[in-house]
């Protein structure tokens, strides 16, 4: 998450240093599933193609109960989106791509530099960094704490960390094999090969497969990590005709918890340092990237004195809202996978039993509700709709993708947006666009979407009509989008005063 922040701040031209107490990208795989919204953020940060080309795309999940298929879901049944529902890529490969992107922007990570002290000051923070050659001090206007689940910065500030620890343990393993399993998420309740527990199989890049086996609270983690224990379990799962090598094994337990607030004056928490969830649903890594996406443009404005520091409060409000949503979904999945009482197990088993013949029960089966972005509908940044709109997109939600033509070439609408405030004007004759451009063109990028076929760099052709329908803009509309591509406001035919007031609200000036 620190790397994502660094890349975003570099793109905003903000001066920073980034330190890591390790000497390399993370060992072991950890997060693997990157959701569509996160991939769109990666596009904005300049390495979306690298991730998608390297990783494995998927959108179908299958849930098995004992030997039979209980439930199947398709996370992106609709065409006309540049990015798939999910791409699986090992965290260390993603981090490698991000380190390279950061280098291309002229920055490097200070490896083996560890923050060991933090003194909060009225106008910033003084951080003590330890290296093998001794200590040094950094005077920072702001500190982003992206130091993970066991955040040292959190401890230095003595912050309260509260939530639920789940009394269960899982074996997590990455294995290398030439498998003929499809690139789908397969989850089993009580499979014949792993009695009494759940199991997960998921494909990653380079013929690496993620396996997750529920072991129960009473298992001995150190024993279960030994290859002589792990290998027979995995062989039972994959069958003897799939030879494999163990790449990485761990036994984990998890909690759903968060800090009460993520912004503490000049110290701001992102990712696992701010909030933690269970792994079922891929909500940890994705929400961390979305934290960075939400924070960096605000921080850049505050550091450049374009917005008051109170703009950072909207980071706190919006990402606490997202953390609550992620914790809620992730806790529900955990309660289904690991029933906490006899009654909850009875109810869970009833759902699984009914799912065979009764379609309604399939939707109750919960092996993880996969990460979707939070729509900040009540955010102080957003302007409430005055005009009627009839589409899933709402103020506060991230803009949706659609295929458009840009300068005669097929392109993604989202790839044209973000990094600065955008006014997206659905306008066939260009008059409204020209008027908004002459008023706001110096501070906001004004682009036009037309139903015609002519396009140039700032006039996109909605050749398939999908942008018009996804934005309910077939009869004209103006969207104001934030630098993180979230909708700040929208109208049918706004006045200059409407746009100015919504812009100031989103910038925290009003």
């Amino acid at each position, binding site marked *: 998450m620190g790397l994502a922040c660094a890349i975003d701040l570099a793109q905003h031209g903000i001066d920073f240093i980034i330190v890591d107490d390790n000497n390399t990208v993370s060992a072991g795989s950890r997060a693997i599933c990157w959701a569509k919204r996160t991939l769109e953020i990666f596009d904005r940060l300049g390495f979306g193609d690298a991730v998608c080309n390297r990783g494995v795309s998927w959108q179908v999940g299958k849930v098995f109960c004992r030997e039979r298929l209980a439930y199947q879901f398709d996370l992106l049944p609709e065409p006309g989106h540049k990015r798939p529902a999910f791409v699986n890529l090992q965290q260390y490969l993603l981090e490698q791509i991000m380190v390279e992107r950061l280098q291309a922007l002229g920055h490097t990570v200070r490896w083996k530099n560890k923050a060991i002290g933090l003194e909060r000051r009225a106008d910033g923070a003084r951080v003590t960094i330890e290296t093998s050659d001794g200590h040094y001090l950094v005077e920072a206007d702001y500190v982003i704490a992206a130091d993970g689940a066991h955040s040292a910065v959190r401890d230095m500030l003595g912050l309260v960390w509260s939530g639920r620890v789940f009394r269960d343990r899982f074996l997590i393993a990455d294995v290398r094999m030439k498998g003929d399993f499809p690139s789908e998420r397969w989850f089993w309740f009580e499979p014949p090969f792993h009695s009494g527990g759940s199991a997960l199989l998921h494909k990653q890049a380079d013929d690496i497969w993620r396996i997750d086996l529920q072991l129960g609270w009473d298992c001995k983690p150190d024993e279960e990590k030994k290859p002589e224990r792990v290998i027979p379990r995995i062989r039972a799962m994959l069958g003897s005709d799939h030879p494999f090598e163990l790449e990485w094994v761990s036994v984990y337990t998890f909690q759903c918890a968060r800090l009460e607030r993520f912004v503490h004056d000049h110290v701001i928490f992102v990712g696992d340092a701010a909030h933690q969830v269970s792994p079922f649903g891929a909500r940890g890594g994705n929400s961390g990237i979305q934290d960075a996406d939400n924070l960096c443009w605000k921080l850049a404005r505050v550091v450049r004195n374009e917005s008051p520091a109170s703009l950072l409060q909207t980071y706190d409000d919006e990402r606490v809202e997202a953390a609550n949503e992620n914790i809620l979904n992730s806790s529900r999945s955990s309660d289904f996978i690991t029933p906490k009482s006899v*009654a909850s197990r*009875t109810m869970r088993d009833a759902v699984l039993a009914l799912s065979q013949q009764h379609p309604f029960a399939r939707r109750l089966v919960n092996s993880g509700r996969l990460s979707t972005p939070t729509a900040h509908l009540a955010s102080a940044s957003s302007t409430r709709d005055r005009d009627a709109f009839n589409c899933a997109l709402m103020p506060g939600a991230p803009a949706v993708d659609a295929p458009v033509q840009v300068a005669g070439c097929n392109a993604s609408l989202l790839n044209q947006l973000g990094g600065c405030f955008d006014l997206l004007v659905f306008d066939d004759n260009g008059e409204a666009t020209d008027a908004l451009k002459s008023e706001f063109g110096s501070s906001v990028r004004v682009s036009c979407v037309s139903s015609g076929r002519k396009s140039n760099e700032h006039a996109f052709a909605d050749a398939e009509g999908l942008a018009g329908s996804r934005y309910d803009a077939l009869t004209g509309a103006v969207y104001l989008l934030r630098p993180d591509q979230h909708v700040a406001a929208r109208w049918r035919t706004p006045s200059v005063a409407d746009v100015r007031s919504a812009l100031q609200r989103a910038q925290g000036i009003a």
Partner: protein
Amino acid sequence: MTLNSELNIQQPDDFYQALLDAHADLTDEQSAALNARLVLLLANQIGDLNTLRQAIAAARELI
């Protein structure tokens, strides 16, 4: 919808007997499983979350 506390079952004694018959010769564990499945099937038939919440609250009130 609000929870209907007035009689809505057409032949109440027949229903009650059918419910007991379903549990005949079951172990406690099997009975609990049957009840759970029944709750889920009936809840889906009702559908409305507000009504279901009222039913859950009404059942819990008596504990």
